[in-house]
Structure formats: structure tokens, C-alpha cells
């Protein structure tokens, strides 16, 4: 192991030297990144197989970084820590190794092993100390160069894998979300590849490719301006619109395994998304008020319940777009309490006839309690969102209301539970009676209620296990649908930033 450190050190000295010459920094980073990456990876890979068969070796690998860290400590000193850096890693590293396999070692045994390791360590430190003396600042620079190198000019990538096992009491059930586990048995919900990068000083780029069981789908790919004058922001590309609260988010940030049916019913299985352009404005009011407007395509799978859907009449004019207007406000009630409130509206053509239009109006509230003014891991939040929709259909106008209310409680660092109630009304005709002829969504003819309860366990913020129970009562059917789901999520790669 130490040899590998040393090998790496030599291999990367160049980078650090450039790093220390600011004018060279950017250019050299570009030129050297790939060279060095190649070298670094080759080194790491060749060393990787070794730890696998021998657990103690892999433990040593885990423990090693502190040792390496202490080495960098040396150059940062002005003398007084020399002692620290010589001793600290010894005890630290040695003890964890000794303790891990067998906690019941007698103190004597432990001390013995430790002494041996300490001797080795001291020897090693000595050798390194001699080497370091000549190039103290060079070593510090090297460490930093390496750190930066991990944050190279490549985009940040992460893969999010969602898997589920589901059981439904009937063969025909009514999950509406594209990534809901809709089959009895194992379900591949999605593999999401998320790509994020700053394009240049003026734009950032975000992309989400969703790899399903049998297709790859470009869910989002858009650019966002970073600093237009007047606090405006432009987003252009393929994107989930910022309608309401949940529509613009991904399964990773949901409190349940599945999507609320409000989104699937009103917009389609993927929510409201499309190719287009969004302009938003952060108003100069003393509290947070953001005004959002967007224009996107009204065609495609994501719009088939209310707008054109697969019906593509071609583009005739500006009235063929799906328009969205939203106002989002946020009130920091205290350090511990937050309230956000949004109102949204969407307007666009639907495919039932010429000049047939659809309008959707919605409001959403998110109230969150997270005590940060004292030690706590608790979070309690209330989310509710209600959508009212009017659609022109031949000879009539249909209106309906759909929404959900959910409560989430994280009661400890790793555990949370949540409950959700959802309701969808039948489409009412202009005479006030539930209408039977809804060509856009022929099956939904009556009230629907659904209740779900979930339990979540996060081993770390990068993995999640979730158990969910569900009761669905679509009143146009004779039977109640019961369901249970067990879902797992794994996130790898760069840590993405969370939205509120």
C-alpha cells in the first residue's frame, strides 16, 4: 500500500507544480487532466484486485487515508505538529484494524500488535519525513492539486437506480406514473443518469436520461442562465415544467414509491414536460416571490390526458403551445419552520377538435418543520397540492378536481414514515352530472380515493429502502385494490444538490 501512495505521488507532482503557477492553472488542467486521469486510474485499478480476496487488506485500504492525510499535515506545520503527524496515524490506523476483526482482544494483545504496527509506521514516517523536508510546500501543493483534480472539467455524473418488488390484489390496477412499480413481482423502476455541469460563466447544463427496461428516454436536457440582468432566468430545452410542487421533481426526492395520481391523470405518466422555453423572475420584493412562465410543446406522451398527446396536428401558431404561469412564494416563518406556497396554471390545446382548449389551475402548499436551532434529526412536513381542470370536448366542457395531501415524519437520523391521501373527482359535464364521454380519459368515470403509508430507511444519503402499503378505491370498479411495495434506491457518483 505505501508503495502505491509513493507511486501516485511521483506520478502527480507535475500537476501540483502547474497548480502552483496560477497563470498556468487552467490551461494545464485541461491538458493534464486526461493524462493524469489515465495514470491515476491505471494505478488504482491495478491495485484494486488485491483487497478483494483478503478482507484485512481491504480494511487497511479504508484506514489508509488518515495516514495519507497526516502526511499532508506535515508540510502545513510550523514545527509544532511534527509530533502529531508522526504518531496520530499510527494509533488511529492500527487500532481500527486490530479492533475490527475481534473486539475481545486483551489489552496486552492489542498493545503488542499496535506496537508492531507503530514501529512500521514510524519507519515509514521517517522515510517520508526525509523526503518531505526538501519539498515541503511542493507536497502541500500536490495534495491540493490532487483534490482539485477530482473536481475536473468533466460534468458531474450520477446514476440513480430504483428497483421495487410489488404485489397487487388484482390483476388490473391503476398506477399512473411511468416509474411506478406496476407489475406483480420485481419491477425495474428506472436507471436515471443525471449529468450536471457549468457550461461557461453564463450557463449551466442539466440532463436526465432515464434508462427503462426496454428504452432509453431523454427526460430532461436543458440549459439555465446563471446571471441575466434584472434577476431573470431563462431555461431552454427538454424539461419538466415547474407546475405545482411535485411535477418538476424526480423519484429520488419523493416520499413515496409512486407518483400521486393527480400528476398522471392531468398530465400523463411522465408529468408535465416538454421541449420549450421558460422564463422566470425573482422579484425584488422583500420576501421570496418568483414568477415563472413557460411555453412547451403540447404533443407527446406527457400531455395526453389533457392536451394533444399523441395526436399531432402540426404547428399552426402560438396557440399550439402549452403555456404555464406560476407564482412561487416562500416564507421562512422561523429558523425551524418554513412555508412555501405556489399557484400554477397551464393552458393549451387538446386533441378533441379544432379550438378545443384545456385549462388547469392548481395550488400547492408545503409546510416544513426542521429544528436547526438545536440538535435534532427530526423533520415533519405537510405537502398538499390540488388541481382543477377544464377541458373543451365536442359539445361539452368537462371539469374535475384531483389532488393529494401527505404528511412526512423523519423521526430519527435514518428513519422516516409518511402517509398520503389522494382524491380524484369524476369529470363533470356542464350540466353538473358526471359525464360518461371523456375521450381523453375514458375509464375515469367516478370518484377515486387512494391512501398510502410508507416507511423509509436510509443507510446513508446514497441508499434508501422503502416499504409502502396502498389501498386504492376507484368507485367505477367493484373491487378495492390493495398493494404492497418494497423499493430500493441507490445513488452513485457526484453528490447532486437538493432542492427545497
Amino acid at each position: 500500500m505505501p508503495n502505491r501512495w509513493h507511486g501516485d505521488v511521483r506520478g502527480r507532482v507535475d500537476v501540483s507544480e502547474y497548480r502552483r503557477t496560477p497563470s498556468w492553472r487552467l490551461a494545464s488542467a485541461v491538458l493534464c487532466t486526461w493524462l493524469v486521469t489515465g495514470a491515476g486510474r491505471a494505478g488504482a485499478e491495478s491495485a484494486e484486485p488485491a483487497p478483494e480476496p483478503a478482507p484485512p487488506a481491504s480494511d487497511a485500504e479504508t484506514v489508509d487515508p488518515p495516514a495519507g492525510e497526516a502526511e499532508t499535515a506535515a508540510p502545513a506545520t510550523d514545527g509544532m505538529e511534527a509530533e502529531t503527524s508522526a504518531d496520530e496515524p499510527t494509533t488511529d490506523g492500527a487500532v481500527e484494524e486490530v479492533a475490527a476483526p475481534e473486539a475481545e482482544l486483551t489489552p496486552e494483545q492489542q498493545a503488542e500488535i499496535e506496537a508492531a504496527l507503530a514501529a512500521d509506521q514510524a519507519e515509514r514516517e521517517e522515510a517520508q519525513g526525509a523526503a518531505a523536508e526538501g519539498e515541503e510546500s511542493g507536497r502541500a501543493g500536490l495534495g491540493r492539486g490532487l483534490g482539485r483534480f477530482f473536481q475536473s472539467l468533466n460534468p458531474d455524473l450520477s446514476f440513480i437506480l430504483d428497483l421495487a418488488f410489488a404485489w397487487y390484489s388484482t390483476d388490473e390496477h391503476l398506477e399512473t406514473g411511468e416509474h411506478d412499480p406496476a407489475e406483480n413481482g420485481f419491477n425495474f423502476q428506472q436507471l436515471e443518469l443525471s449529468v450536471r455541469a457549468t457550461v461557461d460563466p453564463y450557463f449551466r447544463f442539466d440532463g436526465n436520461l432515464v434508462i427503462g427496461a426496454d428504452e432509453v428516454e431523454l427526460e430532461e436536457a436543458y440549459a439555465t442562465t446563471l446571471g441575466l440582468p434584472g434577476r431573470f432566468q431563462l431555461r431552454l430545452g427538454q424539461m419538466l415544467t415547474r407546475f405545482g410542487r411535485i411535477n418538476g421533481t424526480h423519484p429520488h426526492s419523493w416520499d413515496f414509491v409512486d407518483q400521486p395520481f393527480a400528476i398522471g391523470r392531468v398530465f400523463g405518466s411522465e408529468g408535465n414536460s416538454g421541449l420549450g422555453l421558460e422564463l422566470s423572475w425573482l422579484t425584488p420584493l422583500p420576501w421570496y416571490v418568483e414568477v415563472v412562465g413557460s411555453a412547451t410543446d403540447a404533443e407527446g406522451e406527457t400531455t395526453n390526458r389533457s392536451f394533444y398527446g399523441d395526436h399531432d396536428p402540426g404547428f399552426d401558431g402560438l396557440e399550439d403551445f402549452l403555456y404555464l404561469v406560476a407564482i412561487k412564494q416562500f416564507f421562512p416563518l422561523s429558523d425551524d419552520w418554513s412555508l412555501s406556497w405556489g399557484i400554477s396554471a397551464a393552458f393549451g390545446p387538446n386533441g378533441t377538435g379544432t379550438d378545443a382548449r384545456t385549462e388547469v389551475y392548481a395550488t400547492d402548499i408545503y409546510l416544513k418543520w426542521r429544528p436547526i436551532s438545536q440538535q435534532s434529526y427530526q423533520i415533519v412536513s405537510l405537502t398538499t397540492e390540488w388541481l382543477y381542470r377544464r377541458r373543451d370536448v365536442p359539445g361539452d366542457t368537462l371539469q374535475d378536481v384531483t389532488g393529494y395531501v401527505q404528511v412526512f415524519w423523519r423521526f430519527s437520523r435514518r428513519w422516516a414514515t409518511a402517509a398520503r391521501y389522494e382524491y380524484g373527482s369524476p369529470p363533470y359535464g356542464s350540466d353538473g352530472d358526471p359525464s360518461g364521454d371523456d375521450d381523453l380519459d375514458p375509464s375515469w368515470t367516478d370518484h377515486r380515493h387512494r391512501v398510502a403509508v410508507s416507511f423509509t430507511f436510509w443507510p446513508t444519503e446514497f441508499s434508501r429502502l422503502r416499504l409502502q402499503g396502498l389501498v386504492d378505491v376507484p368507485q367505477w370498479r367493484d373491487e378495492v385494490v390493495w398493494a404492497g411495495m418494497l423499493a430500493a434506491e441507490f445513488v452513485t457518483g457526484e453528490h447532486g444538490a437538493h432542492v427545497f
Partner: protein
Amino acid sequence: MRSFASILLAITLLLGSGAARADLEVVATTPDLASVAMAIGGAHAKVSALALPTQDPHWVDARPHLALKLARADMLLVVGLGLEVGWLPTLLTGSRNLNVQNGGRGHVDCSELIEPLEVAQARIDRSQGDVHAGGNPHYMFDPRAAAQVIDGVAARMAVLDPPNAGTYRANAASFKTRLATARIGWEKQLSGLRGAKVIDYHKSFPYLESWLGFHVVEHLEPRPGIPPNPRHVAQVLALAKQQKVRIVLQESFYPDRTGQLVATQAGAKLVRIPAGPDLSARQGYIEFMGQVVALLRGATD
């Protein structure tokens, strides 16, 4: 719609003309950096922090009003080294403020001003827990690192607000002198800590360790970001007894039951220190470090 727009415009004008604006609006991600900016900026700077000292700076909610603060800021001080990676990008994008974006004139990554410890020397992965490849981000616990931050922040303030450049430099110089004087006193007070064995909760103290010369022999978290489990705690406790650990050290935003247990059973003292100065009580950086020193002193006697 038109009347709504004109009302907004009127309010904008009112706010723009009415409010007395500081020469420099500074936002820092953490209270320690904010307290440094306050000392340097003096009356010319309006400074606020995004995180509270009672809050884990790894896990700050990207509450939208924080983006509003960033939208108004001339200068942003970040700890860097990946500490804010889970929340700051959202706020920066939301701020629509070119000055404070990465690479902007007002964006200061303070980790570039210091010599980081625990820089990854080989390829890392998440089996090691929440590791920070670029180095450990808790450097403000070392007053010597803080002195480097003071220099860097003052230099940037001078660039951003040239008319007051002299004041910033003078404030920084006097602040550094006070800090250096205080540091000598602290080092004397804590000379008994040199060589002492310490257990901490999270890997939050390599800089404090490097400054004061104590040895952190083990962490209550089995790996950074992974909460303590019984098996690991048993090992830590055995080690604490064997190594005659004197102090169990943790930041106050971590739960203290485990630390208390280990401290009691091992005959050590539990020291809970805040993550940064309490700005609402007008605590400055020197007073904060004085408090940290006093807490450690209390445990060494």
C-alpha cells in the same frame, strides 16, 4: 397584469431608494466565515450566514429565501472542499447573481486560502463514508488557518470595494494582531492538552488537533457520515479505556448520548462545542475560539 407589474415596479423603486445600503453585502455559508467578514468589513459591510452554528453545515436545506440573500450579495464566502455540495448549487442557480457564482468576482472559496489537511492521496470511494477528496473542510478551528482566511477575504473585499480598501486592510491587520495575541494565550492555557488522547464524533477536528497537538485516536462514527453502531462503540470504548482517553469531543449539532456514555465509562470528559460563533448574540470569531478553548480547558483540569 399591467397594474400588477406597475405595483411591483413602484415597490422596487421604493426599496431601491429608501433602504440604506451597505457598501458591501456579504453572505457566508457558515457563521465562522461570516464572523471573519464582519470583523474585516466593519461598518461598511452587511454580513449574514446561511447556516446556523447549531446546524450541521453538510445538511442545510436550500430554503428559497437563502437564494434571495445570494441574489442581493456582492460577495459570497464558501468553506469549499465539498462541504456545501448538497445545497449551495441549488441556491446559487436560484440567485441569478453572476457575481457570486463559481468563478464570479465576489465568489471566494476560502479553502483556497489555506493548506488543507486530509487531502485524498489516492482514489477514494464512498465505502469510506462521506469523504472530502479535496481535504477536510473544518479548517476554521485552527486560528492559524483563520489568519490566512482573514488575509484572503480582506484582499478580495479591497478589490470589490476600492474606496474602502484601506479600512478593510487596517481592520484585517488589527484583527490578525488580536487573534495572534489571543492564540498565544490559548496555547499556554491548553499546553496540558499536548499529547492527550481524544475521541471525536465526526472527523471535524484535524485542524484543532494539528494546532493543539492532541491525538484523536478514534471516531464515534465508524466512517464519516455513518452514525455510531453498538459494535463500533464497544470497540471505541475499549480503546478509550486502554489509551486513557481524556476527552470526547464533538460538535453540538451531533447527538451526545453516545459521547456521554463513552466519556462516563472511560473516565473522560465530554466536550460539546458549537460549530461556529453565535452571530445572533454578536459573538465574534475570537470570542468563539475563546469559548472553544475554555470548554477544552474545563475538560483538562
